[in-house]
């Protein structure tokens, strides 16, 4: 038994060495010029340089691309336009809604729904007017509408990414980093929410792993700690802070994300989006007895 174990260990080590060698060979084959030697393990405890603070949040299209490789989701089922009459009109919530609307655009691109993309392009322009950024967004909005009518989905994706980036950059230039971060949070939340919708319908551990994004949740929690009043003390923002903490706790429950965890993440993200994007469900009327 021990010998078998030893043999397996040797075989495993040999296989690993072979794979490593093949990997190195592959790298060298691909790069005749300027090829690099494999780096050593990074000593994180004694890293001699600096850690860059900036966090680049992946766009929903990145994770949607993976889902498309492992499943055939009907993206049309995922499209949910924002509630036009949502009561939250503060700039912070408008920034969140703008981010979510751009994420909606990415869903519509996956669905190749020209009609939905054009609606989203127009809504983005209207929303940008409320944020005082219409001049910056208008060229993107027009390009989104034109490109979708030509079926140029890659161009629409580029423009959606560009729209969000333009808005974030403009906000940053106006020293409104808080709003810029909220745009990213809105986009990430909507993207994550639709991902949980699809994964909960046809669960697999591989798909659920796409939700393993602890670094991003930690980043957004940090963002929320830097909010200033009046945003900070609003009921809606407090609800988002709680929501992020619940998302983090759900993901920390175990190494593998279970079906139950996906359902929980779906419920939490939906509740968070109801603060600024989805319509809030009508409160249930108390049942009154006639007897």
């Amino acid at each position: 038994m021990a010998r078998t174990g030893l043999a397996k260990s040797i075989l495993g080590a040999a296989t690993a060495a072979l794979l490593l060698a093949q990997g190195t060979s592959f790298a060298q084959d691909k790069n005749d010029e300027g090829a690099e030697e494999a780096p050593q393990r990074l000593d994180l405890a004694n890293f001699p340089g600096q850690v860059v603070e900036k966090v680049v949040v992946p766009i929903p299209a990145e994770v949607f691309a993976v889902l498309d490789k492992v499943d055939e989701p009907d993206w049309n089922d995922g499209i949910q336009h924002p509630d036009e009459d949502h009561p939250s009109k503060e700039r912070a919530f408008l920034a969140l809604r703008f981010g979510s609307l751009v994420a909606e655009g990415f869903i519509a691109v996956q669905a190749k729904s020209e009609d939905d993309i054009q609606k989203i392009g127009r809504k983005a322009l209207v929303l940008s007017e409320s944020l005082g950024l219409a001049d910056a967004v208008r060229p993107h909005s027009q390009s989104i509408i034109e490109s979708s009518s030509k079926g140029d989905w890659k161009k629409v994706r580029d423009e959606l990414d560009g729209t969000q980036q333009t808005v974030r950059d403009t906000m940053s230039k106006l020293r409104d980093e808080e709003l810029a971060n909220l745009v990213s949070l809105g986009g990430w939340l909507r993207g994550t929410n639709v991902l949980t919708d699809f994964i909960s319908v046809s669960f697999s551990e591989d798909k659920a792993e796409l939700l393993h994004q602890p670094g991003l949740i930690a980043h957004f929690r940090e963002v929320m700690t830097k909010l200033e009043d009046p945003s900070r003390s609003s009921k809606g923002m407090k609800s988002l802070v709680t929501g992020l903490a619940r998302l983090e706790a759900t993901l920390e429950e175990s190494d593998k994300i279970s079906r139950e965890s996906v359902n929980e993440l779906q419920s939490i993200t939906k509740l968070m989006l109801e603060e600024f994007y989805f319509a809030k469900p009508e409160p249930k009327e108390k049942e009154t007895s006639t007897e």
Partner: protein
Amino acid sequence: MVLRISAVATAVVLGLAGVRNVQAFLNEAISFALEAATPYVEEGFEVREDNWSGEVESGKPLLVKHQLFRGNEYWFWAACSYPDTEVKVDIFDLMGMPVSLETFSKDGKAGARVLPQSTDTYLIRVTVSRVKKKKGNSEEAAPEEGEQLDWGLTYGYR
């Protein structure tokens, strides 16, 4: 002047490829990194609008944290707009293990490719170093200690 011309040329090349509009070329190091990305765009990589950039002391490594998704393939491209510089990019997992499948470094530009084995945060190390400094036509001088160099890092996925 040379840098300006090169940046404009890059804008034209990428503009023709339908990759970017001229607004994106405010940062020269980023424009050089996007130049390094151009051949990969033709292979189907979608390059992000957002990116990282700044200044760093020559030879001092930088570490960028970034979320990657298993199932996607990624290229990270970095560059410095100064002449006579060497740029390196390497990718590591959170345990510090190298995970780049291939890398290149040439003419102040570099890249690294990865197929993430798990969906998680990864670490991208960028190093920009002055390799030699021309004095006059041919004489070389040692790099100045503490010299600040610009850097830009972008990525694409497919």
